[in-house]
Structures are given as C-alpha cells and as structure tokens.
C-alpha cells in the first residue's frame, strides 16, 4: 500500500482528501503545516505529497523547496492544491518543486486519477 501525506491547515480539506484517497486504497497521513510535514516525511518517506499553498509557519512553496533538498525523500512527486489559480502562482509552485498544480475544488475521481497516474498505478 502506498502512503500519501496531505499537508493542509484546513481540517475539512484534509478530511475531504483523506476520504477520497482512502476510498481509493491509499494510506493517508496528515500534516497541518510545512514544518510538521517535513518532520513527518523525514521520519517516514511518503510516495506522494498533496500540498496546500497557504499555511502558517511554513507554506507550500517553502515546504517544497526544503523538501526537494532532503536526501532519500526528495524525489517523490508532489501535487499542489490551492484555491487561487493564477498563472503566476502555478509557476511559483512548479519552480518550488511541485509536479502538478490543481485548483480546488477537485472532483474526487479526478484527484484519484491524478494520484494514480503520478504513482504509476493506473495500468
């Protein structure tokens, strides 16, 4: 079973994503900000990260920048999820290390499809 870390300061969003992903057969952990996410990831590497942008302490960009420098875990794909969908934000996200930039609300089946694709689980 593959592990996914959901990083979001909003509990609802975390739950929303958790429900979807668990229903799709993934094991899910949560972090409420970038710092906590880094700590968790260093203890237990995840296969995929779903990252919110606006978070206290360390936001999504900051998290991704740090994360991409950490040995052993840095190569995992990351999906950035946000409500703002400006083109500039996307580029910022990509530059920080995101592999995909999705705009909320994401339809459950869409999210599952993206996750499966990134994890190579579609075949």
């Amino acid at each position, binding site marked *: 079973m593959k592990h996914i870390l959901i990083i979001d300061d909003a509990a609802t969003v975390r739950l929303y994503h958790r429900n979807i992903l668990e229903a799709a057969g993934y094991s899910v952990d949560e972090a409420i900000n970038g710092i906590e996410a880094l700590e968790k990831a260093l203890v237990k590497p995840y296969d995929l990260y779903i990252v919110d942008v606006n978070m206290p302490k360390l936001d999504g960009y900051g998290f991704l920048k740090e994360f991409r420098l950490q040995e052993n875990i840095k190569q995992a794909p990351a999906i950035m999820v946000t409500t703002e969908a400006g083109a500039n934000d996307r580029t910022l996200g990509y530059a920080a290390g995101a592999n*995909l930039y999705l705009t909320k609300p994401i339809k459950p089946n869409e999210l599952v499809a993206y996750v499966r694709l990134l994890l190579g689980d579609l075949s």
Partner: protein
Amino acid sequence: MNSLLEQFLSEARDFLQSISEKLMQLESNPNSVPLMTELFRFVHTLKGNSGLFDFPEMTRVLHASEDLMDAVRNGRVNYSNTLADQLLEAMDFVGMMMDEIQVEGKIIKNYSATAAEVAKSLRGLLDSADAVNVPVAIEIYTEEGLAAKAISWAELPELNLPESIAMALYRCVMDGDTVFWLQYTPEPECFFKGEDPFFLARQVPDTLWRNVISTNDASSLAEMDVYRSQLIFQFLTTAPTEELDDLFRYVPDQIHRIKIPALAFVKPNGSVNNQTVDDEFISSALVLLEENNLAGLTRTLLTMLELSAPDLWSSSVLRWVLQCIEVEPDNERMQYALLNALRTQITPDWSSMTPTIKPHEVAIEPVAVRSVITPTIPVISSGLPDELLQIFHTVVNTQREILSLPGKWSAGRLQSVAATLLGCYRTINHVYEIETEAALQLALTEKSPLPLLALLEAALLDVAVVNTPESEIIESLGGRENANRGSEDVVSVGRRSEDAAGASQSKTLKVDQEKIDRLMNLIGEMVVAKNALPYLANRAETVFGVRELAREIKSQYAVINRVAEEMQDTIMQVRMMPMSFIFQRFPRMVRDISRKLGKEVELVLEGENTEADKNIVEALSDPLIHIVRNSLDHGLELQDVRVAAGKNAVGKLIIRATQESDRVLIEIIDDGNGIDPTVIKNKAYEKGLIDEATLERISDQDAVNLVFAAGFSTASVVSDLSGRGVGMDVVRSAVERVNGTVGIESIAGKGTRIYLSLPLSMAVTNVMIIQSNEQIFGVPMDLVVETVRVPRSQVRMIKRKQTTVLRGRIVPLLSLNDLLANDVAQLPNEDDEFATLIVRIHGEHVGILVDNFRETVDIILKPMTGILGGLPGYSGAALLGDGSVLMVLNPRELI
C-alpha cells in the same frame, strides 16, 4: 486572375474529370469500396478547395455531393445509375461555373436558385435519416425566453465550466451581452485544403472561455492519422453574429452556434458527499427569502459557507445563491429554486424559468478571461479512456512546462519530474522508461533539466505535431504550379510525389502579368529604336561625310542589336506558356461529347509542352475547341459505320503541337470519314460562293478549302453534309487575328487533318517595306512568299485581268495603286520590270505590283484606333527608326 484561383480551376478540372471517370468505373463495378472511397475523397477535396474562395453556390452543390458520396461510401445509400447521373449533372454545373470563373475571374450570374435545386435533388437521394444529420448553424433562444422555443434545454451543450467563469458569464448575460456557444469542428482533411483551424480558432473575437477537445478515436498510436484534424474547438463568446459569420464564412457548415441563456450557466459543481445540508438551515433561509430579508439571507448564507468545505456541491449552490442575490435580487424564483436544490441535491431545472433581465443594475467586474486549452499534442494514446487521457496530457504537458522553467535545479526537482513521468509512462506500457532513467542520470550530472526536456519533446514529437500538413500544403501548391508547366500528363497526382518535385524546384517569383506586358512593350520599342542607328550611320556618311563615325555607329549598333535581341528572347521566354494549358480540357470534353454521340474515341495528345506566347495560346483555345468538336461531331463515324468501312471500331483523334522554327504548328487529325470535295463543290455552288466555271475546274484540295469561306457554313449545310464545316470561317478569322494561318487536308473516307500555324509571339512583327506612289508601306513577312521582278512583256491579260506565269503557275497580278484607289500606274524599273510581291492569301498566290522593294524591319504593330480603326486594308501602323510612320497593309483585306 490570381494564381491560387488559376491553380484551383486547373486542379478542379482534374478532379471533375477523375470524378466522372470513377463514376464510370463504378457503373461497371458498383460494389467496389475502394472506388467509392476514392470518389468520395475527390468530391470532398474539391468541396474543400472551393471553400477557399467565395463561390457559395459551387460549395453548396459540392457539399451536397460530398454528403451523398459519403452515404454511398458508408453503404447508407446504394449506388445507382440515377445517382451517377445526378452527380454528373452536379459536376457539370460546377464545371459551368468554373468556365465562367475562368473567363470572368468570378461568378457573375446568379446561380443560387440552380444551385439550391441541384443540391436539393442530391440530398433527395439521401434517406431522411441522413437528411437530419446535415449540419446547419442554428440559433436558438431569443430574448423572449426559453420555454417558447422548440428546442429544449436538453439540446444545450453540456457546459462544465469552472464556477468562477460560469459566474462571470452569467453576469455578462444579465448585463445584456449575448453569449454564444460556438463549436467549430474542422474537417478532418482541412490541412490539405489550406485551411488553418488554429488560426481561425485564435481569431474568434471576444472569447470568454475556450476549449479544445479531441475526436480521436484511434485506439493505438499506429492507427492514429496525424494528417487529419481530430479537434473540436469550443468557445463561449460575446462576439456579434455578423462577426462570427464573417470569420467562419468559408466553413459555415463546420460551425455549431447556440445562444446561451444566463440560467444555463447557473450550474453548481462540486462533490456530492451525501452530506446533506442541515435542514434547519434551509428552512430558515427559505423563511428569510419569503420575508424578502435579503441582507439577513446573505449573512446566513455566508455563515453556512464558512462552515462547509468549499469544494462541495452544496457550497457551490450557496455561492450561486449569493451571486443571484447580488445580480438579480428580485428573482425570487431562482433563489428559491437554488435553496431548494440544497435539499434535493439536484441542479434546478431552469427550463421552466425565464430570467428577469435587469441590465446595468450592478456594476460588472471585468470578465475573467481564461483559456482552458486542453493540451493538443497527440501524446501516445494507449487505450486509456478519454478522461484519463486528458489527465495524462495535463500531467505530461505540465512536466514539460516545469522542465522549461529557468533557474537553479535541485536534484530533488529533477528526480520528482522524472518520477512523475515514469508514473505516466508506466500507465502506457512502460514506454520510454529506460530512456527517462538515462536522461535523468545525465540531467543530474549536468544539473540541468535539458536532457529530460529533450527526451520529453522527442516523445511528444514521436507522434508528429498536428500542423505538419499546413506547411506541406503550401509547399505542394508551389510545387504544383511548376509541375503543371513541365509534366507530360497532368493528372491528379499523389501529394507525396509532388512534394518531392516541389522541394527540388528552383525559386519562383510571381510577377504581375501587366508588368511583363509592359516590359514586352518596352523591349519592342527598344528594338525599333535601335533601328534608328543604321539611319544615323547612313546620315553620318552621306550627309556629314564622316565615314569613320559611320563605321563606329554601325559596330555599336551590332552590339546593341545583339543585346536587344537577347533581351527580347528572354522576355518572350517569360511569357511562354505550354500548350497543356489548353490541351488539358480536351480529355473530358472528348469523353463527354463522344459519350453523348455514342461514339468511341481514343484521344491522343502530343507535344503538350510545346510553348508559345501567352496571347497566342489563349487565342488558340476557342478555335481548337471548335475544331475538335467538329471532328467528333462530323468527322468520326459511329462504331458500326466504322466497322462496316473496315476501320478500327474506336476512332482516333490526335491533337499535336510542334514547334517549327519560329512558329507553332498545331494539328488536329482524325481518322473519320473525311470531307467529300464533290459535296462541298455543289454546296458552294448552290450558295453562290463559286460560279459554274469554277465548279468545273476547281481542284479537290481547293474545294475542301471552301469550308473556310465566309458564309459557307450554315446549320442546314452541316446537317445535309454530315461532314464538317461548322463555322470554319470563324476559326480562320480567329487564327488570322494572331497572324496565324489555318489549312485543311482531307481524304474522303480516310480522315481529315487540320493544321494551324501560329507565330511563337506576336509582339514584334517582321515586315517588308515596299514603295508605291511615293509612299512606303509595310507588308507582313509571313504573307510574303517571294519577291520577283516581272518584265512588262510577261504581263498578260487573261479575261481582262493582269496575270503572269511564274514557274508554270498562273499568278494573278494586282496593282497596289489600284487596290488603294490611286489613279496612277505602277512605275517599272530601268529594265521595264515591275517589282512584284508574291503573297499567299488563303492558300493562293497573288502578285502585288509595287514601285520598289525596300528592306525588312522588325516593328511593333499598333492597331489603329478611333475612326482609323475602321479603315479596311490596314492591319495597323508602326513607328520607324527615323521617326516616320509606317502604314502596314493587310493584303487579306485588300484583295
């Protein structure tokens, strides 16, 4: 006529011919699928071509033909002789319009009624089920509302817009704008017709939202045809109808346009999690609504929104209610319906509701313009369902976007991109896995995304980029023109082979024909001007007595003469056109006429590459058609007659062009029944064209030549004769207008040969200058057989007419002074000899007595204009090198 149009016409004729050929083949093989497919392709391409121009009637008929052939191809309609007849008729109609375009450069007459009729009868052959499928641009929903219209909500396009855009559009419509849903489905073959769907799509004005989807149904990469458009463009636009009509005027049938009512945008989206919204909340909201306490309602809704996840369907409904309160505060029904939807979890059915239109009540924010373009690069398709394929595209293209970003690249980022791509590739049978790993290693060493990017680009290119055919068609157009000039036999050739030819062609420069004509005129004047130099040399020597200078002028003249002649040759080369220009129409024409007459004819075209001046070639066109028609009509016999006469059952018609020194010789030879001179003689006598004496002694050859006599041909003569003779005098005068001659040889029962001899160019005329009654005149050299001096003693009077015997032949003599009505006798020379110009008039030799011969010169013959233009006996005037005017005689008219 512009070259594109010319190209279109010439190609279209090929297509028309191929179409009729294929139809004939189908007649004997009615179930051949390849034939039908090919036939469809011809009609289809022809239609597409016609769409490039503004010939709506033509396109309309071709479109109907295309639909019909499509139905035949797919087995929905059975091939029948009636169908073939109708199609042929339609193609003839198209051909007729093309003739008009050829002549006039555009369609002048109004064919819309005929076109409609032809198209209707074609469509009549399609069964009713197909008739429904005929795409038409429809407009539904007027300002009056929705319910009154015949077309239901169900027929509105499925709009899956992001909420923010939907809201912006909703506001737009409420603000009084008209929003059209526009779907543009380019024809699959559009790339081959010079259409540029991307360009068109980009041109759509006032786009609020657009989308590109694929119609790709190929299940594997190998099956996908990247030369066909598989795209559907969708737009939401506020552009006025006229603008859209104008933009898509050439592809109106590829456009589907629907006016969207505001409520169609009100479509909450989000996830339905079975989490029903608290019933109490809904009730209290409804109460507030009933009390018309909109402020209170807004507060309640906002609170509720804060409590719900934003991506829920119910949250979306809440936002829509707020939007509605803001834009249409009075539309209680809508607000109620939305709130009620929170209970039912079903989007309200707006079909029964008319929005209240309250324009300008609320200040409208600028519309969020956003392009949602689904990636169009045809990445490896893999049997993934459509939605997944889209997601696949998004992810792959995003990685490309990421890899193209500038800046420093950490190993982690490179690895994550590679990991993402690997995830994608794993979905499609692990392709590119090894390559990606290798590229990643390289990228990590170089600390650069380029190796990964290069691989990704290559992977995408692997399936070819969509707009390749565009450049290809441009190349092939260029190549085609040249190919037309040179090729032996212009048939509709495969595009590929043309490309090869096009690539190796030297560069072609397109020049306005007028400029060439102007250049031609100038060089003509130059040729004449240089003729002044010998005069000058002469004057230098005789008048001023400077022999040295005279010699220098003469040597300089030799140089200028050589350069001028070379220039003249070169410019004439530019104007040269191959005979194939007029020959190419004969196959279809001969086929049609012979079919109509029930004759079997084999047409042989020879020397299509023989070139002549453009004017000459064009002037030849009509006379040739005339002659060929005559040959088919009156020359070649019916099959059984031929067999009975012991001839080959299939008649043979040869049209041959050859170049003989500075003239082009065109021969039209048939092996038909020839012309019976006796019949001609008698007819000519009956018509009073010859007198009894002539009837007695006229040779057979001379008798045959009588067909050229003016007034010989009338309809009755033709039918009586069942030989040829239709308007041959017309042919002759047309040929003579360009200084050509025409002759005929015929052996009764064996066949006929008609030959036209034409100058290569008519810009510069070579004339002989003669002197008579103290004036000088020019006589075109191509009429002059020889010049002789006839001693007075040799001039005999026969039947009160002057004649002489020249090499055993009696030659009538005419005095130029007499012909010009000067009451002066011609002057003989010291030896009492008359200078006599022997000219050939209509095949007969005639001697013209003049006072003296002078030199021959090249002149530019200018036809006389105004009142002088009506002067018979002169072909025109020209300026001589010394500045004097030379009147050029036209002996044909004179005698």
